[in-house]
């Protein structure tokens, strides 16, 4: 049985209550990307300031559930100051984390651990895969970031 504590880890609730990097970037060079989850009504705007291949600043506005809010907050903390290439690698690793492994869903095994060790705080979102309907809440921020980087 999926346990609620797996989903709502303390660090997730912390990011939800005290989101990082809230706000807008108004500089003309900033990229603004909208993300939208029609099923639950979550909305997210990601502002990126990319200079010489480095994400020098990132800000977020929008609203959503704790998972989508925490995931976007953690995402912003994870990629701020990183190169675009590093950010893309993180997106890929995160997406892999969110992939439902039949075996782990059955409780027959766990998602691959190798990646998790390198992911810091983000690993706390691992519990989401046990609640498949919430995966799209967690991935909204990352898909929106990915889109934004495409425009950078």
């Amino acid at each position, binding site marked *: 049985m999926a346990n609620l504590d797996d989903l709502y880890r303390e660090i997730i*609730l912390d990011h939800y209550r005290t989101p990082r990097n809230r706000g807008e970037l108004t500089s003309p060079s900033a990229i603004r990307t909208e993300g939208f989850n029609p*099923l*639950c009504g979550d909305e997210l705007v990601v502002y990126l300031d990319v200079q010489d291949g480095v994400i020098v600043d990132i800000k977020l506005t929008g609203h*959503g*559930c*704790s998972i989508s809010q925490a995931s976007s907050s953690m995402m912003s903390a994870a990629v701020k100051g990183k190169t675009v290439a590093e950010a893309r690698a993180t997106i890929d690793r995160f997406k892999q984390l969110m992939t439902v492994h039949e075996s782990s869903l059955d409780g027959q095994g766990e998602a691959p651990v190798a990646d998790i060790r390198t992911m810091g705080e983000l690993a706390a979102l691992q519990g989401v895969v046990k609640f498949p309907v919430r995966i799209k809440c967690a991935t909204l921020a990352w898909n929106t970031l990915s889109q934004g980087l495409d425009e950078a």
Partner: protein
Amino acid sequence: MSSYSARRVRGDTPLLGRVINGRPITYLDSASSTLPPRPVIEAMTRYYELRHANVHRGVYQTAVEATDVYEGARAATARFINAPQGLDEIVFTKNTTESFNLLAKSWGAANLTAGDVVLVTEMEHHANIVPWFQLREQTGIEVRFVPVTDDFRLDLSDLDRLLDGVKLFSFTAASNVLGTRNPVKELTRIAHDHGALVAVDAAQSVGHQPTDVVDLDVDFFCFSAHKMLGPTGLGVLWTRAAILESMPPFLGGGGMIADVRVDGYVPASGPTRFEAGTPPIAETAGLSAAIVYLEGLGLANVARHEDELTSDALKRLANEFDGRVRVIGPAENVDRGGVLSLDVDGVHPHDVAQVLDQFGVCVRPGHHCAKPLMRRFKLAATARASFGPYSLTTDTDVLLEALGSAVTMFG
């Protein structure tokens, strides 16, 4: 009937025997879909085991029986809502949504032209909005909205002006978000005085209170079997026989024609003109059983029972949680049904529903297909609890316990 017992209905409903996360299920999502009792499920099983055949045109025994099942359901439905001309006025559709599309795309397209007004309300379900928007794109009609007041009622202060130029006033009998029940009979009288026809979205009313389309004097009536203890895949459009006969066909195909030549076709008359293809047949067996079951309970008894549950729940929600749980809908239990949309301070509805699931409590988070209404109240979503004929105050007990946990968790 004084013999109504919600506890017995519960016993008749197999799904309520389920255990979720170690707790007996607390089903509070009847506004989304009701749970069918055993006689409804068995009617469909029996249909498939004994009688299934395609309807109409058949001469052999089971085809005759299947046709009797199908036409018998039409007759039962007509009786259930007191359709004045009986089964000639009952069109079977897929769901309430298809009923409204049929109304808009057949009657609407034939009777409305650029500048004509369809009046709906800000508390409508998308099923009674989007088909009119589609017709607007096609014909240039105007779609006008009756606003909703801060206390969750239709704002009727300006109704006379709003009804100006209106050909059809299409509104919900009961809001699936607010619980608000609208004064159908009174609104119909006023609309008729302005020369408008009236369509009613009865999705949230037919399974919860008695219905009499003659008394209400409405012109169109749309509802779904799955919201009145019946099966999925079946809806109803009722309209007066005279209007029905004047409506052009909707979908084309077998069953809805009198003749087809390579150079054209002649539509059939009567409800079958709107029932192209093999209809949901087993589903009508389920609907008949649901009607018989509801009639056995007595809709007035169901209404009274759900009313008591609603009064109790409203009171307890107001008294607990120090105001952190707000009901989006009339706070007093007057002219409202058993739908409780909750806004929990600091906890997103999605998270509310997730925590409640841990207690086996089924509530629905989201915009409930009523985005204009959500915008009106500056909400992205609510967590909605709603009652059915099988609900008990113990359901409210568990709801409150689980809500308490959600509030604490997100403290």
